[in-house]
């Protein structure tokens, strides 16, 4: 293979990168047939390369989108002006599984709800980027391109001497700055992990290490008189000012949410409500990353920021609207159907892969509960080259960008590129067996 690409030298060292990944324990856990397995997260050394011009648009669009989403979250839990002004239908908001009435009236430190936002995008054949979804609860994945860059720079420094790629190794300091920005009473900063059997445990421990904060397990944290503490040795306790939690809302506090949760910290919600601790990301964000609410994000941009949205949504239909309903029922075989409350690629179905019988079943499901589903046109997004032995093959890949919001909103000049290993599939989620690439943003 003759290769004059800017990453050609790196490819010669790809085995060395994989050795380093193994040595550093870069793993991803998956549950298969009920048992937990840890495997090396398949890394492909060919990076996704984003041009400086594309990035300029993307990063502006991403920051704009996340600012609007943060404004929306504050609004729906307080004044609800977007509902009153008829931009987003009320029952649409209140019927969202992610809407938490307990959060009404609470404004978190620095007004930020979504501190770490993972925005999933794909690039169509003609180069247009489309946002597929906004992950505002606990988006994961930044640690993988972060460590991949560290290791690829180690094994092939000349690659990076030649190509002018924006450095992405400041992710942990961006994260740290966000935690500092929202920290209450200069307390301890912790990453709260549910434990080693979480699929992203590597990420939890690696980000805690790199940001220089404490990795805490649920038993390490307790609440007393609405203040949150870390349980130290010899009965010492240390006030906690911010929890970067990697546990979802419903399991965070058995006193407020899921009673049976063993992962939670009893009364942490009450401490949060009183403003005694910052929770990253805030409680209740699920309402804005609901796949149905997604439809309204471009409208939010106009409404809150008075700007034209820079980024486009995939063409989306909401079966609760009669016209959309008819379109979806008539065109199901060419559409993608998504369950609004699912994630990880689990609720995503392609009409073209369904039998006539299955299509009818899905039509019946949409009819029975139109709020639960959205439909999208299939975006024929571009294939990227993936190494396969010594040659390359083409596979579908998406891109998760990370936007960090503290006092300011910053877009990380990199991101997680995931690809499917199945040549026929469009679904790239790691829980479905996909791999990952580093994402290079060119400086010029």
């Amino acid at each position: 293979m003759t290769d004059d690409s800017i990453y050609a030298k790196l490819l010669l060292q790809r085995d060395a990168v994989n050795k380093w990944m193994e040595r550093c324990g870069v793993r991803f856990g998956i549950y298969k047939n009920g048992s937990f397995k840890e495997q090396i997260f398949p890394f492909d050394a060919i990076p996704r390369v984003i041009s400086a011009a594309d990035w300029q648009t993307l990063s502006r669009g991403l920051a704009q989108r996340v600012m609007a989403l943060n404004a929306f979250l504050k609004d729906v839990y307080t004044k609800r002006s977007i509902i009153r002004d008829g931009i987003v239908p009320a029952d649409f908001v209140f019927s969202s599984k992610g809407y938490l009435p307990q959060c009404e009236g609470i404004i978190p430190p620095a007004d930020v709800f979504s501190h770490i936002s993972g925005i999933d995008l794909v690039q169509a054949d003609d180069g247009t980027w489309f946002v597929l979804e906004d992950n505002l609860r606990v988006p994961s994945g930044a640690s993988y391109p972060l460590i991949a860059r560290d290791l690829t720079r180690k094994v092939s420094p000349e690659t990076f001497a030649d190509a002018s790629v924006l450095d992405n190794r400041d992710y942990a300091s961006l994260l740290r700055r966000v935690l500092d920005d929202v920290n209450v009473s200069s307390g301890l900063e912790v990453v709260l992990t549910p434990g080693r059997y979480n699929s992203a445990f590597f990420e939890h421990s690696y980000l805690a290490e790199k940001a220089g904060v404490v990795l805490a397990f649920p038993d390490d944290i307790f609440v007393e008189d609405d203040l949150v503490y870390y349980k130290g040795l010899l009965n010492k306790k240390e006030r906690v000012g911010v929890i970067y939690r990697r546990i979802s809302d419903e399991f965070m506090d058995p006193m407020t949410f899921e009673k049976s949760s063993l992962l939670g910290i009893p009364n942490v919600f009450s401490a949060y409500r009183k403003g005694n601790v910052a929770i990253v990301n805030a409680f209740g964000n699920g309402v804005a990353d609901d796949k149905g609410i997604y439809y309204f994000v471009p409208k939010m941009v106009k409404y809150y920021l008075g700007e034209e949205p820079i980024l486009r949504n995939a063409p989306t239909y909401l079966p609760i609207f009669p016209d959309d309903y008819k379109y979806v029922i008539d065109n199901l075989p060419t559409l993608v159907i998504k369950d609004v409350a699912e994630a990880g690629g689990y609720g995503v179905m392609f009409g073209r892969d369904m039998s006539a019988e299955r299509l009818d079943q899905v039509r019946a499901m949409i009819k029975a509960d139109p709020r639960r589903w959205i439909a999208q046109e299939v975006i024929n997004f571009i294939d990227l080259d993936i190494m396969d032995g010594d040659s390359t093959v083409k596979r579908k890949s998406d891109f998760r960008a990370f936007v960090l919001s503290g006092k300011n909103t910053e877009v990380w000049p990199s991101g997680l590129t995931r690809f499917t290993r199945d040549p026929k599939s469009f679904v790239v989620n790691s829980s479905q067996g996909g791999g990952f690439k580093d994402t290079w943003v060119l400086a010029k």
Partner: protein
Amino acid sequence: MKYLNLAISPAKADRLYWLGRYAERAILSLHLLRRYCNADIDADSHSPLETFATLMGVPTAALKSGNFVADYLYSTENLSSIASTLAAAKNNAMLERNDIKTEVLAYVELAVNTLEAAKANNAGVFELQPVSDYLMSFWGAVGEYVRSRAVRNILTIGRCVERLDVMIRFCYEPERIASVLETLESVDEAELALCDNQTIDYLRKMAAMPEASSEALSKLNSLFAA
């Protein structure tokens, strides 16, 4: 820096203590196994290996079938095997990545991966020097990379306790035992008072009266579990 020292929960301290113990146990077991296997070359029966197993307090069933070494090195069912010991070290190390640092965890990963590769090749104990080398590097890296003194101290306590246990079992000379105690006493400056006088007393007792060591050990093991 101040808070990094304090933010050690009992569970975390327990994991660090056991990481220190398991990592050291793997080093010493490999070292002693090599020594007794070497003696075994000249012996006409299996008695040196039997002595090893008895002193180490590990199952002897595999001695009869001549499988002892392979079982002791690689069996995942045998909880006292090197493979199980390293797996336990890794379990604790993984959970402590952020305190011990990826660079240090890497040596545990390397030891485990090397042992797994050796198992696939049915390698004998004399081919496992690289596993020992990685574990020695682990301790070197602990001194080099671990920033929190409290974390280093707890790892060292685990390491010393394990050394004492094995040295007493294998009847090392009193001077060598005394030198480990000395290391431990240098740890007790820790502001955490983890290695307080009471702890040191247990250890002295252990060194002086091997028959008291199991009681002392269980006291030590529960030190952080509280």
